[in-house]
């Protein structure tokens, strides 16, 4: 198994919430040794095991950071106050916030960082907003530079 995991989170049927899977699809066209690409979908609890198996995990997800739509920000879980509650960014009760919290409580050793993208529209429907689609290349450049 590779040491590095690039993990996308999000629902393709909630417009910009699908930015993670969209970026991952582009990234996985350029496979790298030692790097696994996984679309984590929206099933939070199953991700705990997956993440625990890697030394380093980069998560790509739509994140409400109260910033202009399309803004990309890279951060570590401990650098942000991530609220544990289900909200509309994750359609299931056990979302990414809950996964990160539980991993922290269990004392996992995986190094995690998050590439958060501010969505514009997470209503029901397919396709990304223009401003979010335009930042896909920047996401890929950011990840390619570090993995």
């Amino acid at each position, binding site marked *: 198994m590779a040491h590095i995991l690039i993990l996308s989170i999000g629902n393709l049927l909630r417009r910009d919430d699908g930015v993670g899977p969209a970026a991952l699809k582009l990234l996985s066209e350029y496979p790298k040794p030692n790097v696994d690409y996984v679309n984590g979908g929206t099933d939070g*609890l199953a991700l705990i095991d997956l993440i625990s198996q890697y030394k380093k995990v980069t998560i790509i997800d739509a994140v409400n950071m109260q910033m202009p739509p399309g803004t990309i920000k890279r951060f570590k879980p401990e650098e942000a106050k991530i609220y544990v509650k289900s909200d509309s960014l994750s359609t299931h009760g056990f979302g990414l916030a809950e996964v990160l919290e*539980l991993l922290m*409580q269990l004392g996992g050793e995986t190094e995690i960082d998050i590439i958060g993208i501010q969505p514009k529209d997470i209503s029901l429907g397919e396709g990304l907003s223009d401003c979010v689609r335009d930042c896909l290349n920047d996401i890929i450049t950011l990840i390619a530079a570090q993995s």
Partner: protein
Amino acid sequence: MTKIDVHHITRVEGHGNIKVDINKGKILMCRLEIVEAPRFFEAMLRGRHYDETIIVSSRICGICSVGHQLAALRAIEDAFNVKISEQEKCLRRLLNCGEFFESHVLHIYFLAVPDFKGIKSVFPLAKTNKDVVVHALNLKRFGHYIGGVIGGRLIHSTTTDVKAMSKLPTKKELEEVLKRLHEAKEELKQGVSILKGLKFPAFERETEYISLQKKGFYTLLEGNIYSSDVGEISYKNYRNVVNEYIVDYATAKRAKHNRVSYMVGALARFNNNGQWLSDDAKQIARDLGLKSPCYNSYLNTVAQFVELVHVADDSIAAAESLLNMNLKLEERSVVVTPGSGVGAVEVPRGTLYHEYIFNDKGIVQDANCVIPTGQNVNNIEEDFKALLPGISKKSQKEITLLLEMLVRAYDPCISCSAHMLDVEFV
């Protein structure tokens, strides 16, 4: 006067409210309101080719996706008189095992256990009882693994097909499955001490218990319907069992059969078919003090744990059988004939029915999916009515907790239970 208004019960799948009003010991209102929006799956299934029903209906639930696939498969096989091989039966048993582990473990440890520890969620549990969370994750990992090997992936499996499983496990994979099944059984032994430490509320209300039954087997994927009140009923007559109807304060259809309510799920299966559990599962039931018939709905959680032991034993037998077979990719011929088919299977929360009416091209003309939680809603309300007089002197907080725990004991999947009505204006 005591009023309980729990808006959105936590630690269940989907949205439901509890509303209770008691005045001088008299129950004025007692409701479990299902407030999920209808999802129109049956309408989406109309006009689809028969092999698409497996894919579309799977999306009804992320937890019971395998169950919906297997119910759809059974309905198609029933409609077109398709017989399946022993190999296919064994593979389905293994796939179902993965789902039961994922679902029951999630409910027992992540949704139910926090109540008994006096905490609100699994997060404080990870601080105070890390061993319990690690144990639960080990069991869930096993469920996920076996689902991945047999189904391609556990949620919305990609291998199930009416012609046959599209991918077969290798000998090496089956040996690994077998090894992990034995490990899972060892892990479950640890769970016994955890379950023994939980103090379940004392409560009894006898009701009608309904499940599938196939004499001699703790059946999950075949058999007829069995009612503890009236005995065996053909699975084809499921509509005469569920008798769906609606109330004006909820979006979920309700069900009743011989009485005002009935129960489906692990406790109903245990009460109806417990004599056919594996020896180890029977022993674990004895160790946990679970005896058939059991009329305490809170103990549905214990029955789920006992089922995990049985499902592991059943899967060991299935995996060993597969290792002794010369596995080969099958391709059953499907001869389409117009008509209807019914699929009835046991999923973690109870008996699930799918029925499809096909035309001569195999296109769905009508679909009906009857979900376990919808069948249990009446029974939960009847439990409320029986429980409340005995606890009405307790504080509002205590009453609320006991009611919430009762709802959670049924492990309701509320999202799946919400259906829209068919109406015709005249």
